[in-house]
């Protein structure tokens, strides 16, 4: 069997039915004689291709395969690979390479790719022969899953794909471990007068919402969302839920100081932005930290870390802590507050109103992809997330991820609807993904919260350098015609500038069987975020 055939068999062996890519000459050997059972999803720029695979891998909970075009393609992909790395997203990245027989003369597309890719990959390797290719892919598959998870790159010289394959998949690896020290932790939590939980992305990734809710109810303590968490792991309408922590260290310390024991589950402790002066010391609060990511633990601000699966850890804690009866209030006042605020801002198309209205329109099990930037805090507060896999955002603040990730997520989750909410600025880093959405008839509702510029940067400028905004260039993005842009790629789009149209168009969008874009003219008022 040649390597071309063996790669396809290997894909099928792992039940990989979708491969993402953008080809060049060096990828032709990889693509030729493509089997019908595997979808090749074409993205029109490498950053998009990687972000699609990232979303797909996260939504499926399995490694995704993405194929890039040698040195130029890897170059374009680097930012998105960095994001996938920070997202702990398991990706097998194959990168085409010039024929090995003329590497010595540095042909056009050649690059020393393995060391380059290694700066963002968990593992990166150029096979030494054709026989080495499938074993390298197999190793990459497990390397990508290795905690914390991330890209693993395999460089594929063209000629190796024509050679003889050695193909011998062999093993399953279970990386989940039960953290040590859970017994003592359960004692501390039971004895604690004022405990609190902070819930992060790993809870969602390990499908452990149920455990998190049971644990919170058993301890009967307030629960916070980790700051800027890339995923949501707790129902935000639950009476114990207090909202997401702000990504400012002094604020986090201030909010958590009243508690004697704080347990951070499956999140960095803590992800902050921007820098605000202040102490990083805790007064009396003891912070515990459970994570399956050794990097999270190594740089944690907790005094005690527990390495392993958050789901298994919570299960073990639950076995030691007898549940109390939760006291459920009839409504959360928060919902009433949002309703009043939305009504108040309706006429001005204020953010609260727009996001509230989006929330009212969306199906209960919708998946939200968030690249809404200055609106993100509001969006996390207002939309209702009630189950696993409901919320995704890039963990490192990279723009250009959202549209592509939405496409990948929708491909992995055909039975749920996907809503992508993006800033106008953010959307323009990855507009090509609309084309892929249309080609695959992905019924994604895309909402652009259009304030004609980089409002978060304006907000930051105003608070860091009051009075200097007018003389700061590069923060406005005028004259973009989003509806024509979308329609040029076959995506139905409407501009919405009043509440009546918003309410109506959202209905139309959700009824659509194809992607549907709303260019929503939101109140451009610059928010005070700091």
């Amino acid at each position, binding site marked *: 069997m040649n390597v071309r055939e063996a790669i396809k068999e290997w894909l099928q062996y792992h039940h990989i039915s979708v491969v993402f890519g953008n080809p060049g000459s060096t990828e032709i050997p990889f693509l030729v004689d493509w089997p019908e059972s595997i979808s090749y999803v074409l993205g029109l720029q490498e950053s998009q291709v990687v972000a699609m695979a990232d979303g797909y891998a996260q939504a499926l909970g399995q490694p995704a395969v993405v194929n890039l075009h040698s040195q130029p393609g890897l170059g374009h992909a680097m930012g998105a690979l960095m994001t996938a790395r920070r997202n702990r997203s398991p990706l097998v990245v194959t990168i085409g390479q010039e024929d090995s027989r003329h590497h010595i003369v540095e042909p056009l597309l050649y690059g020393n790719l393995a060391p380059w890719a290694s700066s963002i990959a968990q593992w990166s390797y150029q096979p030494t022969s054709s026989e080495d290719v499938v074993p390298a892919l197999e190793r990459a598959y497990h390397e990508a899953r290795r905690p914390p998870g991330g890209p693993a790159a395999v460089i594929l010289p063209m000629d190796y794909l024509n050679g003889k394959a050695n193909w011998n998949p062999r093993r399953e690896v279970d990386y989940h471990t039960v953290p040590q020290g859970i017994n003592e932790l359960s004692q501390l939590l039971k004895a604690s007068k004022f405990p609190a939980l902070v819930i992060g992305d790993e809870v969602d990734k390990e499908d452990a919402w149920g455990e998190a809710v049971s644990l919170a109810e058993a301890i009967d303590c307030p629960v916070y969302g980790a700051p800027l968490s890339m995923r949501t792991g707790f129902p935000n309408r639950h009476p114990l839920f207090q909202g997401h922590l702000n990504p400012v260290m002094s604020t986090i310390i201030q909010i958590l100081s009243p508690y004697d024991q704080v347990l951070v589950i499956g999140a960095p402790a803590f992800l902050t932005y921007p820098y605000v002066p202040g102490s990083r010391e805790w007064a009396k609060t003891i912070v515990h930290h459970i994570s399956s990511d050794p990097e999270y633990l190594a740089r944690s601000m907790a005094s005690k870390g527990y390495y392993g699966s958050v789901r298994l850890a919570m299960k073990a804690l639950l076995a030691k802590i007898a549940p109390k009866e939760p006291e459920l209030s009839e409504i959360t006042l928060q919902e*009433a507050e949002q*309703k009043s605020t939305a*009504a108040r801002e309706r006429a001005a198309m204020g953010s609260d109103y727009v996001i509230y209205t989006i929330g009212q329109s969306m199906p209960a099990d919708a998946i939200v992809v968030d690249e809404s930037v200055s609106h993100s805090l509001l969006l996390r507060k207002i939309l209702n997330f009630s189950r696993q896999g409901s919320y995704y955002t890039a963990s490192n603040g990279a723009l250009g991820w959202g549209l592509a990730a939405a496409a990948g997520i929708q491909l992995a989750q055909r039975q749920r609807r996907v809503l992508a909410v993006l800033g106008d600025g953010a959307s323009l880093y990855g507009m090509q993904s609309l084309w892929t959405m249309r080609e695959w008839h992905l019924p994604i509702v895309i909402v652009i919260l259009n304030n004609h510029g980089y409002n978060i940067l304006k907000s930051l400028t105003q608070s860091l350098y009051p009075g200097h905004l007018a003389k700061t260039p590069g923060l406005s993005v005028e004259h973009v015609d989003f509806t024509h842009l979308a329609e040029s790629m076959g995506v139905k789009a409407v501009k919405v500038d009043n509440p009546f149209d918003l309410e109506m168009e959202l209905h139309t969008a959700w009824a659509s069987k194809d992607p549907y874009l709303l260019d929503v003219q939101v109140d451009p008022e610059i928010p005070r975020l700091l």
Partner: protein
Amino acid sequence: MNFTVVLPPSSRVGEQAGLLQQLFAGHHIDLAFTHAEQAKALESTDVLVSTAFVPVTREDIFCASRLRFIQVAGVGVDHVDLEAAREKGVIVAGVAGSNAQSVAEHVIMSTFALLRPLILSHHDLKEGKWNLPGWMGQAQELAGKTFGIYGMGRIGQELAKRLLPFGVTLLYHDLRPLSPEEERLWGLSFVSKDVLFKASDIISVHLPFTPDLYHVIGPQEFLAMKDGSIFINTARAELVDEDALISALQTKLLGAAIDVLNSEPPSAEDPLLKLPNVLLTPHGAGVTIQAQNRIAQDAIQNVLRFLDNRPVDNVYVGESS
């Protein structure tokens, strides 16, 4: 035709009489201010324009042999014996709720007056006390507070619409919830009565009175209310157990604004008068000059309809045409 028009005590008689003569030219008009004057005029009147200041009793109705139509110029027809009117075949009509906006404004005024210790400060200052520190320790904003409206009829709705821009969260309770569409537009969340009393920083009552609502707000409701919250009643005194209100004012409430009292006017010993944190008004929340004018207009329009044999509006007793 003969008319009897009962005027409020404050009326400028000359002006009103002139106006009425002009409107109802060709008819005879008697003006009355007291029950005795009304009773006398009723002996020969066809149309009575009635106000709440003078009751219309069974005896009045049966003694008025020519009486065919009672137009009430006011909101509420409690002072008219409707049963007697029905038996006698006299039509009774009212006016639309033209005082809703006045009541709503009154509630908002009272809210602000209590949140800032307005009255106390004003009196302090007039007595020579410059108490800025006291003020600073007490004055509060309305924005951010939760406002509960108990009873979502016309007045409740006018109140909600006017409150929304102040940055409040609006809760309400009523036997009949609004449509989801109305709730969304006005930013209102329907909650149980229990949650309304527990969660609100300010509660304003806008229920109509029916016997089953007697003391619908009593010790239990005040117990549920938050410490430091505000209670406002511009609806009907019978809805509220005044003793329970007084004890809540003494123990937990920031204050109350009460427009309707058990005995009106109150006796000099009425304990409500002694409390520093209660704001009292003489059953006048709905009685602004503008509301009175609208009521007068509505009442006159209805009488003109009656004279013209056109259907009358807001009929309580009888056929509308």
